[in-house]
């Protein structure tokens, strides 16, 4: 890379960076430190003083049946959302890639749900599966199936997974399509001339060449499932029934704002912070590698 013109001086650049640093400090570093600090104490019942408990909050959390259940719920939920949204997206992208004409129109048909907020996607799906007036619930009833996600934990999980995956498929579709179109036609045609069928070509050429895209989407979708699905869960199940859809971020919200249990909620934030830092580092390592080589 060519050497840049750089200028000396420290006050102007520091001045330029200052507002950014202030905001980052107040809304990111201070609260992160606060969460770590707070997680080491419990407030007394009157809220007048704090008592040092060391790692007591963490010990309590990890021993807490509901917290461990929430961990498992988050894992199941994230895996399902990721697999469903990526699987369907890949299938659609392969279809679109084989369309010679009109793949632009097709793209438009598929990507608009991305603009629908998770909270709104929740409303749309809740309406279809509403236990009283839902049209799908009604048809299922005609078939003899009694749908009730308000009581049935499995059905509740299924519904939030589908609603969360719905808007996400658009995003994944775009990346898969771009990945597929970047594969040189000549390679695939050569394999076809050699007599390789579609499935063989996909398995031996397309899938391996697509793996960087797949890996990137894997990380991004897990992060999405961890945090941005809050709106879906809040509108459809509010974490129920019996906390069956209470993922970790929903529990931070429920314990911190509804339950007002600050020490525990802070410890939960710290654990989440840790998990998401690892995920992001993996993601950036990957992007860096892509940019440089």
């Amino acid at each position, binding site marked *: 890379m060519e050497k840049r013109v750089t200028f000396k001086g420290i006050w102007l650049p520091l001045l330029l*960076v200052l507002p*950014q640093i202030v905001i980052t400090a107040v809304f990111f570093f201070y609260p992160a430190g606060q*969460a770590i600090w707070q997680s080491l104490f419990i407030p007394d019942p009157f809220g007048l003083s704090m008592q040092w408990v060391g790692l007591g909050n963490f010990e309590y959390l990890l021993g807490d049946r509901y917290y461990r259940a929430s961990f498992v719920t988050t894992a199941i939920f994230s895996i399902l959302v990721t697999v469903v949204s990526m699987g369907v997206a890949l299938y659609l992208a392969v279809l679109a890639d084989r369309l010679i004409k009109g793949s632009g129109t097709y793209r438009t048909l598929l990507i608009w749900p991305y603009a629908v*907020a998770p*909270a709104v996607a929740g409303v749309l799906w809740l309406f279809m599966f509403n236990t009283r007036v839902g049209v799908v619930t009604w048809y299922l009833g005609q078939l003899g199936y009694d749908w009730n996600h308000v009581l049935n934990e499995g059905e509740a999980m299924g519904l939030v997974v589908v609603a969360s995956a719905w808007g996400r498929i658009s995003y994944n579709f775009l990346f898969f399509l771009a990945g597929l179109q970047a594969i040189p036609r000549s390679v695939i045609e050569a394999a076809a001339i050699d007599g390789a069928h579609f499935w063989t070509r996909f398995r031996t050429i397309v899938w391996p060449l697509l793996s960087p895209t797949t890996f990137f989407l894997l990380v991004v979708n897990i992060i999405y499932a961890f945090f941005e699905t809050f709106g879906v869960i809040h509108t459809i199940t509010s974490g129920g029934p019996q906390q069956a859809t209470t993922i970790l971020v929903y529990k931070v919200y429920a314990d911190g704002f509804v339950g007002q249990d600050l020490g525990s909620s802070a410890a939960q934030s710290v654990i989440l912070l840790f998990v998401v830092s690892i995920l*992001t580092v993996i993601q950036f390592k990957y992007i860096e590698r892509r940019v440089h080589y």
Partner: protein
Amino acid sequence: MTRDLNRILIGTLALVLAGLWGLPFAYSVWTAFHPEIYAANFKWNAPITFGNFVEAWNSAPFALYFVNTLILITIVLVANFVLCTLVAYAFVRYRFRWAGFLFGLVMVQLLISPEILIVENYRTLSQIGLTDTIIGIALPYLTSAFGIFLLRQTFLTVPKSLDEAAQIEGAGAWRVLWTVYVPLARPIYLAYGLVMISFHWNNFLWPLIITNSPEVRPVTVGLSVFATVESGIEWSLVNAATLMTTAPLIIAFIIFQRQFVANFMRAGIK
């Protein structure tokens, strides 16, 4: 012959799937434009009505919600453009002490999802008395490490000769920024601005907890409050409201498709 048939089959399958895809939304549109009794009665000649929209519009302060969202987006957009530009410019054009350290500090923000820190940030805002205000919703989002990263990458591609030429003409640091760097990054501003708009139009968790009166609620939170009212609000109204609040963004998204897509790709895979 079989190839053609194959192609037609694939095309049909693709269309059917895309249709299936749109079903939840299509159903919402159907209910919104028809009287309540046709909600599950799909007759082609069912009368079309706009009454649901009028009634929904009148039963919750949606006009206010829209204004709030517009104010919020304006604040966030202006602040991000200004602050991210300044920071990116400083890191690209100047070599100063602690530059590496400060850049690292800025980028660490990418690790910290604001959703994790809602409880702590809520406390900070209540200490400075800014809960339940639009500026309170905007504050944690006034700058973004992602925006800085994007602009920095763009500024790095500005040819050194242009910068020097501007200086020979007698332009100072501000003029160089304004006349050389910013115009060259225009597509990035457009793409980043679009992403910011869609993010804040749809953002939910933080605005939900930081606001509790309709006067400051953005439109997505307003809709969710409207839709979860237990007092037997009609679903046709909910659907009309859903359409009103999402249609502007969907239309913008379709119009600016290319910019959105370009931006996704830039953020992810280069």
